[in-house]
């Protein structure tokens, strides 16, 4: 073939030869064209002559319609099989807007046969805004047999209106699991775009619902399943006559959680009608045992489309029920930060356990006085006493000795200020203050600079510190587990419905912190002291197990030099109560962080909740009623 090659070295240009070369190439191309057209003709021959009878039958009967068969969505259960999300079948009355001339008139007309409440109308209107015109949208769900019969008799009057059997999602636990399970909702235009972009839209043909929040959203892929296909023969009117072939759908997988529904309920009830969050974690695996954010909402409202009124109410409520406080709310940790600060001091060699300071009740730095809650001070304070009595002065000085960047490095290794990676969407990072953070956070140069004075209040968990209850719980679990850190996870395993095959969410340690055994023992001993003779001793009096804990109070507003007097402060501006704890102290089975918003001191409002939770989990004692604030608890 090499004779066709151009030889650029030849100086004399032979036009004839070049034309010849070109024509050879063109000839090859023309042959290619003929071969390809021959191939095409052979294909036509195959389809139209050889296979004609086959396709003739298909087209004649044709009326073959390809219908999607929507898979059953996987259900969600707790560790003992208590159902948290399930499906039920019900009849709905649906309107296809593009086939109806006047929607208002049609709905009025329908209302004479089937009850249509104002809420149904509002919900329909909202659905209409989010959907395409040719989609079939429910105006009424859960029709009674009588209503179906009444409508069927009058069906001819309503082109574009149909009764359909559909699967609905139901959340039997209602508000109790709203922030864990989340909810599904109708697939809207935005969801469709996303599915299209990911190449998943054909699996959603016929599917009306998709996970919007919580586990329903995070585990959408597993829960949804694979859409099946049915080829059916339809008559000229489009009604299915018989099925030709069928590929069954594959049901979505079930989720089995680590959470214990009863424990969740104990927590939920313990809060009463106070706002707040509690996350309880199994330290040795990172499995989440309880995950509560109060208040919640009824996820069932969202299933067949929420109406505008309920939507507005949920969104504008000052209690913010739609906010998942456990992973999207951030709070200063207050004094619950102290055990971690003490651990940092030991790890970095800035303090020994026995080293004491003399606490006069305040700490002076750069001309500014930082007060301790206890007027007159705690006297001589070592590390144990600093945690048990929650001495601020000890930590003011410690923070200054450590410096902001060492604090930041240590707390960062415990997961503060970064997402824990829990298997549910919506987690925020919080704020782990450092020089670098401040530089990024602020724009003006004078604001970007870190002042040594700002480090002082970081030591007692105030200042720029801001973490999610989940981060606090995870850090507590890590401490309880002697520095071995697991990724918190809600789902224990995903179970395929047909094969029963289980895919576990493996509890692999994220990292093991380089902590010395005796240092861990010192901190844990002090935390046991807190529950035995310290700030939360009253809450844990008489407990048949030993436990470690730490109280905390997070300031909502900064008070300039005055003493905080609760009765003088409006409810919304009162301090948040915090508590972290684990039990049993010897071999922790549960670690938790709890925050009760605007409830003042941690020992009063938060620690008693933890007691109730531990009692249930470790002894089976089931109180399950709102915990009363312990007004005689120490006020620091």
């Amino acid at each position, binding site marked *: *073939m*090499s004779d*066709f*090659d*151009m030889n*650029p070295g030849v100086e004399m*240009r032979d036009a004839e030869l*070049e034309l010849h*070369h*070109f*024509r050879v*190439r*063109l000839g090859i*191309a*023309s042959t290619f*064209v*003929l071969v*390809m*057209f021959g*191939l*095409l*003709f052979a*294909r*036509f*021959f195959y*389809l*139209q*002559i050889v*296979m*004609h009878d*086959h*396709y*003739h039958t*298909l*087209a*004649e009967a*044709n*009326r*073959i319609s*390809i219908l*999607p068969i929507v898979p059953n969505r996987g259900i969600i259960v707790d560790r003992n099989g208590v159902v948290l999300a399930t499906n039920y079948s019900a009849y709905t009355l649906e309107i296809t807007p593009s086939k109806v001339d006047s929607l208002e008139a049609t709905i009025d007309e329908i209302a004479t046969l089937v009850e249509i409440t104002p809420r149904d109308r509002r919900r329909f209107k909202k659905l209409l805004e989010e959907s395409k015109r040719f989609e079939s949208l429910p105006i009424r769900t859960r029709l009674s047999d009588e209503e179906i019969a009444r409508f069927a008799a009058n069906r001819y009057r309503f082109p574009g209106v149909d009764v359909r059997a559909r699967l609905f999602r139901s959340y039997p636990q209602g508000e109790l699991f709203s922030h864990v399970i989340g909810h599904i909702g109708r697939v809207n235009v935005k969801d469709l*775009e996303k599915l*299209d*972009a*990911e*190449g*998943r*839209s*054909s*699996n959603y*043909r016929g599917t009306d619902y998709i996970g919007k929040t919580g586990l329903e959203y995070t585990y959408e892929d597993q829960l949804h399943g694979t*859409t099946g*296909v049915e*080829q059916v023969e339809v008559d000229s009117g489009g009604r299915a006559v018989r099925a030709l072939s069928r590929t069954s759908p594959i049901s979505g997988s079930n989720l089995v959680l680590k959470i214990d529904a009863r424990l969740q309920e104990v927590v939920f009830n313990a809060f009463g009608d106070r706002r707040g969050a509690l996350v309880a974690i199994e330290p040795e695996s990172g499995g989440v045992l309880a995950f509560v954010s109060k208040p919640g909402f009824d996820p069932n409202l969202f299933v067949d489309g929420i109406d505008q009124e309920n939507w507005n109410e949920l969104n504008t409520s000052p209690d913010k029920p739609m906010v998942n406080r456990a992973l999207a709310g951030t709070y200063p940790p207050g004094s619950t930060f102290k055990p971690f600060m003490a651990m940092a001091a030991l790890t970095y060699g800035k303090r020994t356990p026995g080293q004491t300071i003399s606490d006069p009740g305040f700490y002076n730095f750069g001309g500014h006085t930082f007060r301790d809650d206890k007027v007159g001070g705690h006297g001589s304070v070592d590390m144990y006493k600093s945690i048990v009595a929650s001495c601020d002065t000890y930590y003011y000085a410690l923070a200054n000795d450590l410096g902001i960047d060492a604090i930041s490095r240590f707390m960062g290794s415990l997961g503060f200020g970064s997402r824990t990676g829990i298997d549910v969407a919506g987690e925020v990072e919080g704020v782990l203050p450092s020089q670098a953070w401040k530089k990024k956070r602020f724009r003006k140069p004078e604001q970007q600079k870190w002042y040594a004075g700002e480090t002082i209040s970081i030591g007692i968990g105030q200042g720029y510190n801001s973490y999610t209850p989940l981060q606090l719980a995870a850090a507590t679990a890590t401490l309880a587990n002697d520095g071995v850190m697991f990724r918190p996870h809600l789902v224990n395993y995903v179970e395929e419905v047909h094969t029963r095959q289980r895919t576990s969410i493996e509890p692999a340690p994220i990292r093991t912190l380089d902590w010395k055994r005796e240092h861990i023992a010192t901190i844990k001993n002090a935390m046991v002291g807190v529950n035995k003779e310290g700030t939360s001793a009253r809450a844990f009096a008489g407990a048949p197990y030993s436990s470690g804990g730490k109280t905390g109070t997070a300031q909502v507003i900064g008070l300039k030099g005055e003493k905080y007097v609760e009765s003088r402060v409006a409810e919304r501006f009162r301090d948040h109560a915090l508590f972290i704890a684990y039990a049993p102290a010897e071999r922790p089975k549960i670690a938790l962080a709890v925050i009760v918003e605007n409830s003042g001191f941690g020992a009063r409002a938060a620690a008693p909740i933890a007691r109730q939770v531990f009692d249930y989990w470790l002894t089976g004692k089931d109180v399950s009623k709102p915990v009363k604030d312990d007004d005689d608890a120490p006020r620091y």
Partner: protein
Amino acid sequence: MHPGIRRIGRFFTAHLDSPLLGATLLLMLAGLVVLYSASNANLGRTSGQLMNMLVALGIMWVFAQIPPHYLLRLSVPVYVVGLLLLVAVALFGEVVNGARRWLHMGVTRIQPSEIMKIAAPLMLAWYFDRYEATLKLKNYVVGAVLLLVPVALIARQPDLGTAVLIFASGCYVIFLAGLSWKVIIGLAIAGGASLPLVWSVLHDYQRQRVLTLLDPSQDPLGAGYHTIQSTIALGSGGLAGKGWLSGSQTHLDFIPERTTDFIFAVYSEEFGLIGNGVLLILFLLVIARGAAITANAPTLFARLLGGSITLTFFTYAFVNMGMVAGILPVVGVPLPLVSYGGTALVTICLGLGILMSIHTHKKLVQT
């Protein structure tokens, strides 16, 4: 006949090529006939397409008047403008149906990838013509870059169908310009060998998409639906077809996009294998005439341009019919001169006009 009238007549027909024009008109006629059926006897749509055809024929006439050496001079500016517009699309383009293809130009919006369909082969033909005497491997590399830049920009929009067509049109120029067989075979082997590598870097869903393209029955609800239904339409058409306006697949709404990309399914169902044979012959007529014109063109520029236009025309027809017949993946390529839609029609007729110009300006150049 009055000599004046004859002169006017000659003015209009001087640069037209009757075999090419004849085959074109027959294909357009077939297009109108099948469109009438495909649109459920919608006269408005059919006459609208007739108007499109008249405009396209006008453009064909205009380009038949332009001597090839004018086009030679326009090659670089047209290519540069086309490239700039593509960059503008990438930066400020309007997103329609998830793809960034359109550019707003004051009152109207344009699709610069359409310009590239002509600009890319023009540019490459110009380039190889310029270095005709001293073509070295280096020149082919430069040619490949000139081609791949716009192709990459269009593929990113994403508009894979158009990118593939423009890539093919440029490859034809490079092939006809005499790229060494050693390199061609080497590239083919390298391309084949790199497939597993490409496969390994694809996302799962991208792989799934490729698999669906290869086997439509894997995704009967999505991309596979078109192919399944169009195959039934073809097969049930049989030898002589079901007759005009009598295709059940067509009229019971089973063929999607049946006036545009899948119009061949309608044609095939109603006119059968015989009709398909006639259509293939008409397409072959256009291609054969194009090849003949190309073979006798006086300059390398004209030869390369003419060859590319002819082979690209073939590619359109082959890819479209192959896709409807279920042997090629579903990509958005219309059946030339038959599918409903003005833009593609204009582009095709413009190319055919250039072919006519090459043929009828031959003597002028040679003297």
